[in-house]
């Protein structure tokens, strides 16, 4: 079963000007001590038409996570306006919060986001080139869409048996900073990683 259950996500600073950072206060519960960090990401969907315009706003590692109930605030900068198609700047889009453990996504929380001019005049006659300074971002916080995925919470079976039979120390003794981190620096595309290989 899933070792981590998200209990609540509170959207802070909402509604807010478009340029404000996103802030989510995430409360989650963990069944047992996790030897590895959780990785959280905020993804801003730039356009409904294509995933090409998705932006990872930020990703953080969260750990160490002992058994119990925990909370933290995940803050990430507003999306890069240069990457948003002009036609999609105003209107409804989506922001996603995902969490992965050992590189496997196990929960995806989505919110509708409405970007709108506060000025009635601008609302009536929106400029062709979006004026981001006047845009207000409103996250529909009351209606999160949560999708959970089943993942393998343990290390692979073989590995687990090894660790049982050999030395129990490695996991317990590692200082948190030297935890093996699998996650990559954010915002890198597969194409790029191909290049560096």
């Amino acid at each position, binding site marked *: 079963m899933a070792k981590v259950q998200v209990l609540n996500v509170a959207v802070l600073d909402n509604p807010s000007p478009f340029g404000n950072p996103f802030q989510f206060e995430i409360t989650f519960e963990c069944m047992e001590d996790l030897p590895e960090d959780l990785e959280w990401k905020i993804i801003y969907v730039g356009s409904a038409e294509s995933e090409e315009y998705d932006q990872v706003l930020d990703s953080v590692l969260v750990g160490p996570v002992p058994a119990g*109930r925990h909370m933290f605030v995940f803050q990430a900068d507003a999306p890069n306006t240069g990457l948003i198609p002009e036609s999609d700047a105003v*209107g409804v889009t989506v922001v996603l919060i995902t969490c992965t453990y050992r590189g496997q996504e196990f929960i995806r929380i989505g919110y509708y986001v409405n970007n709108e001019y506060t000025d009635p005049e601008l609302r009536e006659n929106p400029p062709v080139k979006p004026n981001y300074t006047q845009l207000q971002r409103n996250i529909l916080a009351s209606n999160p*869409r949560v999708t959970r995925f089943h993942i393998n919470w343990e290390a692979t079976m073989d590995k687990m048996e090894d660790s*049982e039979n050999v030395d129990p120390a490695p996991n317990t003794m590692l200082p948190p900073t030297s935890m093996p981190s699998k996650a990559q620096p954010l915002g890198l595309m*597969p194409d790029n990683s191909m290049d560096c290989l």
Partner: protein
Amino acid sequence: MKLLKPSWVNHNGKPIFSVDIHPDGTKFATGGQGEDSGKVVIWNMAPVLREEDEKNENIPKLLCQMDNHLACVNCVRWSNNGLYLASGGDDKLVMVWKRAAFIGPSTVFGSSSKLANVEQWRCVMILRNHTGDVMDVAWSPHDVWLASCSVDNTIAIWNARKFPEIVMTLKGHTGLVKGLTWDPVGKYIASQADDHSLKVWRTMDWQLETNITKPFSECGGTTHVLRLSWSPDGQYLVSAHAMNNSGPTAQIIERDGWKTNMDFVGHRKAVTVVKFNPKIFKKKQKNGSTPKPSCPYCCCAVGSKDRSLSVWLTSLKRPLVVIHDLFDKSIMDITWTLNGLGLLVCSMDGTVAFLDFSQDELGDPLNEEEKNAIHQNIYGKSLAITMGSQLSSTIIENPEMLKYQQEQQRNQNPNGAQASGPENQTPKLTNVLNGESLEDIRKNLLKKQVETRTADGRRRITPLCIAQLDTGGTAAVNSIGMKSNLLLTSASKIEPMKALDSRFTERSKATPGVTSVPLTIGITPLDRVKDSSSVKEPKGKDETSSDSEDKIVVKSMTKRKGEMEGAEVVEKRKKGRPRKDAKIMPISQPFPQTPVSLDKEPSRLTTPVALLKLPTPSIQKSFSTQVSTDGVTYLEVENEVSVVSGSRLSQLKWSREGREWDTLLPSRIIIATGSSDVVAVACEDRTLSVFTACGRRLIPSIMLPAPMSALHCSGHFVMALTASATLSVWDVQKQTALVKNESLNPILSGTDATVSQSFLTRQGVAVVSLSNGKTYCFNSSLETWNLIADKQDSLVQCADFRNCVSSQDALGSMGPLALTQGRNLSAGRLASRLSSMPHHLQQGMTLAFLEKQLASALILLSASEYRHWLLIYARFLVNEGYELRLRELCQDLLGPVHKSSSSSWETTVLGLRKRDLLTEVLPVIGQNLRFQRLFTEYQDQLELLRLK
């Protein structure tokens, strides 16, 4: 009889495999299939019982749902005290649920149904042991044990007071075990399996009581479950699917002799579930009719694959009622209300039905007193007595045992009372978050939370722990009001948009479960900053290019791995170097009793014959050493004190508490050592001289085959380790050789290890520790090297016998074995932290480890350690229920009761009288009532011998 099918009790059309009514009758649980997971739901009973409650919107129907099981839930069962719910499923797990002390309702975050969980049930324990689907779970009377059975053909008995401890795994079925039931008296547990058998096991020793096969020989393994049931008076056991004359039946098995003479006949297809009414009934006295004494009877409901349900009274030959076509598919489970008048049935078709009987139909239920009177009558004891002891249901069979048990309780009680006090207080303390309210914490969370950067420049947040799990989560996080400052205008604009909607869930369609995040390597934080401004979303290519992405992942993973390995190699080399150096350089500190060499140059005494293998200490001008701890004794050596006619003389000086003597030797002394009885010195000219404690020479100089590497004395034993890696041990008092020039080759060959330590026990056993962590001793009667300690041994690390160490043992044993194994033993405690280590594996490892310790103590002739480990071993055998081994142990300690000349039995072991040891072991055995017969048997024989 009233019949109701509450349509609101459903799993969205998915099958419901199990149903169980809570002992307090206010709620019931269902288990079955959920959306791509298993599902457990807790429902309110009131809307089932009363129509007005069903219509009342304010009365919740669903209390809580849990989708934590990864696969279909086959069984849900409430504990008898109602505190716990156990569930077992196809994910091989048994989960134990407990209600969290929550205030107010909460929703499952993001659940589409928006149905609030009125009650919070939290999984407090996951029991992992089965290697296949768990089919049935059952709590024993008084909730002492929880049993689970599985398609892995086994039944696990869990200690319900010490989860996840396994009391016993019952093995014997050769097919999928599909049903369990406890004897209400607590003496037996019965199981039914696809192997055409029903087995009854004793709870006293967990052995098979009887194996019933005849009524099942014709059965095919076609039913999903085989839920059998035991009658509340304990007299009858009724099986699920049995056959009689090729017709499906439910076989009645009598407790008395396990006779199978009767059955419930009439169902057209296999019986899947039988459930006895918890009440015992007596005939309703009708007004006017003459009151005649009638036998109490039981009531039993039978469900079948033929989709029909029958209810029987044991006083009637025909069923009380048969209901056909109640469901579209097979009946899966039945549960009675505690008052015995209501009945819930669930089916594979995903619906449940409720039957409500009147007392006119079933009879007058006996009250608890009357029921207890029946039990008292049949079994001589009332089941209502809740005994504190763990084996509440075991009957004490002999007065000795009773006396012993009572004594034990007396001894334990004062301690127990003291210990419970502070324990009760601790959970409350953990609830307080430094006196801060959650609201305060939330306000400053962003500022307060600890954020660091990892080595690769990534943000890492340490989450704030707001509640421990075991406190029941009193922090009411979920009641936080969501900020809904939504503008009405925007609400109208937010309509479900297909394109966006797909983004919420699409990952599950593309690659359910295994989503891989591409790994990237070699990007410096600088690059990252530059890139992040012009980067596109790395994900979402799953459908089209999942293959290529996978490849990238693999590639980058392997590269990572390569790097890691490279790093490891370097690390290893670093570690390796000093070891190699150590081989060349003389080892100084491992020889605590030998002179410390300050000289870095190895002594190169050329011995033409033997190859130098072990380092020899270098010659010093003078040195002193302390020998034998009782009475501080010093040995002082001064080489080349004087030159007399061309030969150089060396002086050996001995002093103890003012007394002293000295002697002269013609060659320079390399090593000098001594015990309380003797002094031994090895000289440069490869001679060994031995003196008494008074300085008298005992034997003429012994000529050694090679220079001395290490020399030890203990008592009147002298041990010599030569540079050519040979070992000799002499008893200088008897002037005999115990070990003669024995080569160390067997233990040194094939390794690059060197001797790191050596010593001689008081009993004259030579012990050699190597640098690879292994320690050997040489047994002169077997003429073998025996491995007595290994630091790398996984058994040492995984064995967990803390439960078996009594308080007086806790200090540990002193002796050669403890000396070689050192603090390494405590490493075994790490084992308990390995949460997912299967119990049986740990059990096996601990057993193997303890037996090794015992054998090692024996070969080291260390009596006190032998006794120490023997008691721990006995406690372990008792705790884990190894009866055969326990019996063998007792038999060996007791020996033949009647003397016979042919007997080769030794009365002592290492100087300890075996029967004295048995006297010590027996109380340990007596601690477990299961072994009371063993206890009595040996206790009696010991007593007999004592009288002789």
